[in-house]
C-alpha cells in the first residue's frame, strides 16, 4: 500500500515536472516571447530593457531560469506575473479556483443526475420511442460545440428573450461569489452549468445505456430476476450498481480535467474568470509565470483525478481490492 502510494506520488511529480519543462521550453521557443521589452513598457530605452532583463534574470541560462522560477513558485511562493507587474501568481490562481470549482461542481451535479436519468430510462425502455428520442437528444448534446451552445444560450437569455418572463431573471454575465450573494451566485451560474453539462449528459447517458444494456445480458441479472426482484430493484441495485464503475472512472477524469482548466470555453463564453480563462489569457499574453502556475495546477488536478479514480475503483469494485 505504502509503496503503491509512493509510486503514485512519484508518477504525479514526474508528469508535473514533465509538463512544466515542456511549457517552459515551448515558451522560450516562441518568437516575441522575450518579456523584457513588454515589462519595460512602450517606448522604453534600450538601457531600460537591458535593466529589466538583468532584474528578471532573463540573461541567465535556461536551466537556471527554470530552477529559479520553480523555486519562486513553490518555495518562496512569490512568483510574479510578467504582464501585470507586481502581481503574485499564486493568489491569482487561488482566486480563480472557486469560480472554476463552482462552475464545474454545479455542472457535474447536473450531468451526473442527467446522465444517470438518461442512461437508466433509455436502458429500461430499450428499443422504445423514449429510448430512441433520448439517444438522439444525447447525441445532439454530444455533437454541439460547447462554446457555440453557450453563445446561443446567451443570445436567447441575454438578448432575444431577456425581456420575457422566461429569461428576465438572468443576471448579466459574470460571477458572483457564493459567500456574498448565494442567490446571485446560483442565478449567474445556472445557464453556464447547463451549457457545460449538456455535452456530458449526452456522453454519460450514452455510455451508461450501453453499459446497462450489456449488463442486462449478464447472468447475474437473470439471477436477480429469477429471485423475484422488482424491475426497478434489478435495474438500480444490480445493473446500475455494476455499470457505475466505468461511469465513475469517466466522471473522475472529466471532473479533474475540467477543474484543471478545460472548462475554459465555457468560462470564456460566460465571462467567468476561472482557471481556464486565466490560463488562456496567460497563454495569449505569454505570461510565463502565470502559464507555469496554471498549467502545473491543471496537471495536478488531472493527475490527482487519475489517482482518486483508482482509489474509488477499489472502493466501488470489490474485485479490485485484492489486486
Amino acid at each position, binding site marked *: 500500500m505504502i509503496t503503491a502510494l509512493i509510486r503514485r506520488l512519484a508518477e504525479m511529480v514526474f508528469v508535473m515536472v514533465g509538463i512544466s519543462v515542456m511549457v517552459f521550453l515551448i515558451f522560450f521557443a516562441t*518568437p516575441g516571447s522575450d518579456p523584457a521589452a513588454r515589462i519595460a513598457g512602450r517606448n522604453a530605452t534600450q538601457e531600460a*530593457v537591458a535593466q529589466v532583463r538583468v532584474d528578471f534574470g532573463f540573461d541567465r541560462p535556461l536551466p537556471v531560469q527554470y530552477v529559479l522560477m520553480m523555486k519562486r513558485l513553490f518555495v518562496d511562493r512569490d512568483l510574479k506575473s510578467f504582464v*501585470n507587474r*507586481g502581481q503574485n501568481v499564486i493568489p491569482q490562481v487561488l482566486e480563480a479556483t472557486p469560480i472554476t470549482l463552482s462552475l464545474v461542481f454545479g455542472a457535474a451535479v447536473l450531468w451526473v443526475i442527467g446522465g444517470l436519468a438518461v442512461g437508466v430510462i433509455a436502458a429500461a425502455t430499450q428499443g422504445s420511442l423514449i429510448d430512441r428520442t433520448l439517444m438522439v437528444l444525447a447525441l445532439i448534446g454530444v455533437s454541439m460545440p460547447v462554446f457555440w451552445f453557450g453563445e446561443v444560450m446567451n443570445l436567447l437569455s441575454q438578448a432575444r428573450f431577456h425581456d420575457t418572463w422566461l429569461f428576465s431573471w438572468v443576471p*448579466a*454575465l*459574470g460571477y458572483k461569489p457564493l459567500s456574498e450573494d448565494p442567490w446571485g451566485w446560483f442565478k449567474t451560474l445556472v445557464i453556464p452549468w447547463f451549457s457545460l453539462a449538456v455535452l456530458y449528459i449526452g456522453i454519460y447517458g450514452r455510455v451508461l445505456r450501453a453499459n446497462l444494456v450489456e449488463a442486462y445480458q449478464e447472468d447475474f441479472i437473470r439471477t436477480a430476476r429469477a429471485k423475484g426482484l422488482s424491475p426497478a430493484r434489478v435495474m438500480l441495485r444490480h445493473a446500475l450498481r455494476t455499470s457505475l464503475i466505468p461511469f465513475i472512472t469517466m466522471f473522475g477524469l472529466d471532473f479533474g480535467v475540467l477543474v484543471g482548466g478545460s472548462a475554459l470555453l465555457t468560462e470564456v463564453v460566460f465571462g467567468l474568470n476561472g482557471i481556464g480563462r486565466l490560463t488562456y489569457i496567460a497563454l*495569449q499574453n505569454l505570461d510565463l509565470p502565470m502559464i507555469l502556475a496554471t498549467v502545473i495546477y491543471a496537471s495536478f488536478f488531472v493527475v490527482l483525478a487519475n489517482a482518486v479514480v483508482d482509489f474509488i475503483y477499489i472502493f466501488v469494485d470489490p474485485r479490485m481490492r485484492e489486486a
Partner: protein
Amino acid sequence: MTCLPTGSALRRGLAAAAGLLLASTALMHGASAAEDRAALMAAHRGGTMRLVANAAAGTIDPMVNYTSQFWQLYQSTYDGLLAFKHVNGTDAFTIVPDLAEEVPAPSADGKSYTFKIRKGIKFSNGQDLTVKDVVASFQRIFKVASPTAGTFYNGIVGADACLKTPADCTLKDGVVADEAAGTVTINLVAPDSEFFFKLAVPHASILPADAPAKDVGTAPIPGTGSYMFASYDPNTQLKLVRNPHFKEWNVDAQPEGYVDEVDYDFGLTEEAGITAIQNGQADWLFDPPPADRLPELGSKFQNQVHINNLMAFWYAPLNTNLAPFNDERVRQALNYAVDRDALAGLFGGSVLADPTCQILPPGFPGYKPSCVYTQDPGEAWSAPDMDKAKELVAASGTAGQKVTIITEDTAVSKAIGTYLQSVLNDLGYDTSVKPISANIQFTYIQNTKNNVQISISQWFQDYPAASDFLNILLSCASFTPGSDASINISGYCNKDLDAKMKSALALAVTDQAAANEEWSKIDAAFMEKAPLVPLFNPKRVDFVSGRLGGYTFSSVFQWLFANAWVK
C-alpha cells in the same frame, strides 16, 4: 463613396453639438465658477460611484504603470509639481501649478527650474509633504526603472548615472532641495520645451520619501490627491476613498471630488458592463462598447453617451527596409488605395472615427489639416484613388510579391487587417493576415528580427506635443534594429527630417508657435515619404449611467471621475 454625404453631414452635426457642450461648460468655469462649484458640491456631494472594466491594468505604482486606464485614476490620487488642467477638451493641454506654488520661469540658460513647494499638504497617511519627498521621488523614477526614465527624465543632470546603476541614484546635481526655502531646483543637461509636460504625467508623481524603491505591485503608495487607493486586487476590485488629509489648493490641478467612494470592479465583459450600466448597476465602463451594442446605445441611450476626440491615431506602419514597402511608390500607393471611410465603419461608423491621412491628430499642437492621398488632395480625405495606386504599383514592379499583415487579435485590428488584405490583393499582392495576441503584437512588430512588412498599430499621446508623435514614432533614434523596443516600427530614418525635428524641438523652448509651424511641415514631409498609412483618429465613447452628472472629458487624461457626481 456614395454614402459619404450623409456620413460627413452627421459628423458636422455632431461637431456642432460638441461645440455647444463645450461652450456651456466654458461658461460654467467662467466668472462665478467657484460659487457654482460650491453650489454643485452642496447639491451633489456624496455617494459611491461604480466603475467597471474587463481587467485591471497591472501594478498600481504610479511611476511604473503606463496605461491610460490607471493614468486616468492617478489624476485624482497623486500630484506632480505641475499638472494638466482638469477641464473639458483641449484646454486640458494647459499646464497649471500643482504641488508647486506656480509654474516657474526657466533660468537664463533655460536649463534650470526652481519650484516652490506648497506648504501644508499632507499625504493620505498623514505625513507632511516636504522637499525631501520631491527629491526622493525623482530618484525613485530611476530606482524602479520607470518605463519613461530613459526617455522623459534622461535630460536631468545625473540621470545617465542613474540609468546605469539605478540603486545608487542620487541626482545630486540634477534635483536640488533647499529645505529652508522650501524649494526644489531641477537642472537639465539641455533646455527642454516639453519638460513641464513630463513633470505633469503620473510617472513624475511626488510620493513619500519612504516609498519602497521597487515596483510596489498591488500595494498602493500614499499620495496627495483628493482620493486615495483603499485596496487593490487586480482580479476583483480597486477601491478609492476620500483622502482624509486632503484640502483643495488649486481646483484646476487637483479638484475635490464629489463622490465619497469609487469602486472600480474588474472582470466584467464589455457586454456585461454595458448591461450593468443600462440597469443602473454601474456608472461607467472603461472598455469601448462592443460593436453590436453601439446602435442600441446611440438610439435608446443617447443621453448617456459621450463621444470625444482622442489624441490618437490608428495607423499601419510600413517597414521601409523590406520589400515591397522599401519602395516609396508602394507605400504611397497603399495610402491612396485605402478607403478610410470603410475603416471608420469597422471602428463603429463615421461618428466614432475620423478618416485621416496625416500623423498628428486634429486639435493637437502643430496639427494643420492636409491630405494628399485622396481623390481631390486638399485638407480632408474624400475617397480612395485606386487608379493612382495601381499606377504606382505598376511603376514599382512589385506586384505579385508576398505580403503579410500582422494585426492584434482584437476584433477591430483583425477587421482592419482583413480589409487591408483585400486592398493589397486588389493592388496585385499576394497577401495574408496574421493576428497575434494584442499583448505581444506591439513588441513583435517592433523587432526587425521578425521581418514584419506591415502591421496595424495605434499611438496615443503621452502629453500634448507634436514631438510625442513625430519624433517618437519616426526619429532615427527610435529605431534600434533587433530590439523589441524600437518604436519607429517603420524603421524609417530620414536624416533631413531628423535634423528638422531636432531644430523644431530646440525652437520650441523659445517660440512654441513657430515650432508648431515647423512640426506641421514635418508632418506633411513625412507623409510625402509615407512610412506609414494613417487610417483614422478614433473617438472615445463613454457610456455612463443615467444618474451620473458633471461629465468632463480632458483631452489629456480623458474622463475625469473626480469632476462627476452620482447624487
